[in-house]
């Protein structure tokens, strides 16, 4: 792993004692010894990731399908809808994004259903770095997070310097959350140290520039292809200091799927068992309706655990999902369905 990276990341106390530790800036305060060993050098990291138990695809898909048959009705459905709304990272990531589009998205984030003001606000809006400056005044004083993709999103194919500059640009413009992408090429080539160092470097940049900037690490599971890879990438991102592990950019198909999210929820559950820390998960892309969202919440509830039912620890990266949630919320509270023309298009 790259010593230069950790030296380029001032602002955090170095771990005492071990001069061999690279990227120490990224390490959580106290990792249990077996996890601290795992990040001591590249060969340890590789051994650790390859020593994780495999994931049986038939089994995990079967479990995901079985949990998807849970029947959530009445009060539990309304509670789920409100929770899901409060977990949405309302997203626009288009080349055609304009300040006007972002302002209307921000308005929607503040009041998802203008006719029903008690509808909860969303968790965050998610935009490209150059749109952060537009979003900040539009959301001032609401508590809604401003997430920005960064690090040469969506492909991640650029130099570390560019990725760090991208991160800096977003944070300096006012982003409170950074959604970075990992270098999938490096991961698939087995170059785990490089992936680790880049996450750690972005983590360090977040910590240097803003207090409490939360880092979401996008694994782009559609390109990792196997559940074994998803599990390894999840642990890699957790070890490197990601606050969130996030499935997808939304630019690759398949984006988020239930079984992939199961694997990632299991990872944060296991991370909590081993370290006592609560880390978060964000499926993104492809979750379009309330039924799907509730299936994800059931998975959060039963795979990770009830304490993950919180916008701090689980998010949906979505755009059209919010309207369906709003429509279903009205159906639950008013006893009948309205229609798509009764909610705002953006």
């Amino acid at each position, binding site marked *: 792993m790259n010593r230069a990276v950790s030296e380029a990341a001032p602002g955090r106390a170095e771990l005492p004692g071990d001069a061999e530790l690279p990227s120490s800036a990224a390490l*959580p305060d106290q990792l249990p010894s077996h996890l601290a060993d795992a990040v001591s050098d590249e060969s340890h990291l590789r051994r650790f990731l390859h020593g994780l*138990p*495999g*994931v*049986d695809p*038939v*089994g*995990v898909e*079967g*479990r995901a399908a079985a949990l998807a*048959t*849970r*029947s*959530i*009705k*009445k*009060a*539990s*459905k309304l*509670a*789920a809808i409100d*929770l899901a709304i409060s977990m949405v990272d309302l997203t626009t990531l288009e080349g055609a994004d304009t300040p006007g589009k972002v302002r209307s998205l921000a308005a929607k984030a503040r009041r998802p259903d203008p006719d029903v003001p008690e509808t909860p606000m969303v968790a965050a809006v998610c935009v490209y770095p150059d749109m952060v400056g537009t979003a900040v005044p539009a959301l001032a004083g609401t508590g809604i997070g401003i997430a920005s993709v960064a690090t040469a999103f969506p492909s991640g194919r650029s130099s570390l310097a560019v990725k760090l500059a991208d991160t800096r640009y977003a944070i300096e413009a006012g982003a409170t959350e950074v959604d970075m992408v990992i270098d999938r090429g490096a991961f698939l080539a087995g170059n785990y140290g490089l992936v680790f160092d880049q996450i750690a470097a972005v983590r360090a940049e977040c910590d240097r520039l803003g207090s409490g900037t939360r880092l979401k690490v996008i694994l782009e599971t559609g390109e990792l292809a196997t559940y074994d890879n998803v599990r390894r990438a999840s642990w890699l991102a957790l070890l490197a200091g990601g*606050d969130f592990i996030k499935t997808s950019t939304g630019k690759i198909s398949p984006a988020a799927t239930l079984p992939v999210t199961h694997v990632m929820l*299991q990872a944060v559950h296991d991370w909590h*068992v081993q370290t006592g*820390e*609560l*880390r978060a998960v964000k499926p993104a892309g492809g979750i379009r309706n309330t039924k799907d969202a509730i299936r994800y*919440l059931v998975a959060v*509830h*039963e795979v990770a655990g*009830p*304490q993950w*039912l*919180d916008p*701090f*620890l689980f998010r949906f990266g979505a755009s059209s999902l919010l309207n369906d949630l709003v429509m279903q919320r009205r159906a639950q509270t008013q006893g009948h369905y309205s229609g798509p023309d009764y909610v705002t298009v953006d």
Partner: protein
Amino acid sequence: MAKKTSGFEWEYAPAPESAAIGKLKERYLPFIGGKFVEGNGEEIKTINPATEQPLAVVSTVSTDDVDTAVTAARTAYDTVWSKMPGSERGKYLFRIARGIAERARELAVVETLDNGKPIKESRDVDVPTASAHFFYHAGWADKLQHAGFGPDPKPLGVAGQVIPWNFPLLMAAWKIAPALAAGNTVVIKSAETTPLSILVLAEIIADAGVPPGVVNILTGAGDIGKALVNHPGIDKVAFTGSTDVGRQIQSSLAGTGRKVTLELGGKAANIVFDDAPIDQAVEGIVNGIFFNQGHVCCAGSRLLVQESVAEEVLEKLRTRIGTLRIGDPMDKNTDVGAINSGEQLSKIRELTAVGDAEGAQRWTSPCPVPDRGFFFPPTIFSGVSQAMRIAREEIFGPVLSVLTFRTPDEAVAKANNTPYGLSAGVWTEKGSRILGMAQSLRAGVVWANTFNRFDPTAAFGGYKESGFGREGGRSGLGAYLDTDDVAEGF
């Protein structure tokens, strides 16, 4: 990352399936000679094990009625069914398969009310698999000459069949479908505590226009089963149930030359190696022993886990079992339903008390248990040794015995060290180990990285005291044809 969260509590609201969908009648009659007729035995009341409330009155048969049914089956065999071309028999089977699918929701409700299993299992497993068995065997009916049993394999005649209470509809399908496809006629007796779903199946069979006498369905207790399997008019006996009764059947039929297949008890080992996909293995362990409240002859009731991962697996297992929802079987979110009868519940209590007395450590799921009805919470015994009764006897309930091993040889030795040999599970990501274990395990079914999978195309059956003969697949078909192939069981 230290921020603590809101403590949101999410209770799933009850989501009960409507009992009205089951269209339960006040009174059910046995089905003999194509008609629903009053039996000459005593009436029984069948109850809902989840509430202990009566569901319906069922007329049971006498031994004279057994005679009548066997005669009806013989007549149907001689005059209609054995002479009918296979392609025509197949049409009836297809019709029954479709009839089950069309009345799937009703059948699922009836099964859950009468048996106590969760509606999600009767809906997603029992009923669709029952239908699949008829579909699968319908396809065989006109292809018997291509099944590898010679150029023109013949049916055996009248089959006498006795089925258990754990999968009332599915076991009926396992028994009836291959028998009819091969050209036999059937007299089948349902279990005493679960007669309803098979009598709905009788309506489907009648609606399909199956000629009278081809399928006869009897109700009653063990004495009727005994009269049926010993009836001189029977050419073939198929029994699924306890090893004790299986033994009696075998000794009473010895020397009669009658073909027998027995599918009896089990004490399956679910073997988890340290290179297993641990999270899915945990799922498989849960599915292996808590599916259908553990009322499964092939249940993975002995967990053999490699010592190096035993603690990790057990911790994950306890966490997972803690999420199982036990309660009203009609609720779509219930994972573990009711024990089928008070008698079975006492047996489970008795054997678990023995586990305590023998020094095993009991762990019980913290999930709340309903105060009415027959329920037993998911239970794990750890620190179990081969010598304990809970490691040797079939408990037939939601109780898992955990043993450990150090090497593959030890795993095989412990897994095989049982009078039973119905099924086993192997969890490892190493393909060669799966194949090696499958060869070494003395069990009729070996699942690799899964458990409790049932498919009509796959042969199912046991070794040793788990019985002999196979059901399902080509070999299951052979059990209803006049061929020596059956004796080998493959």
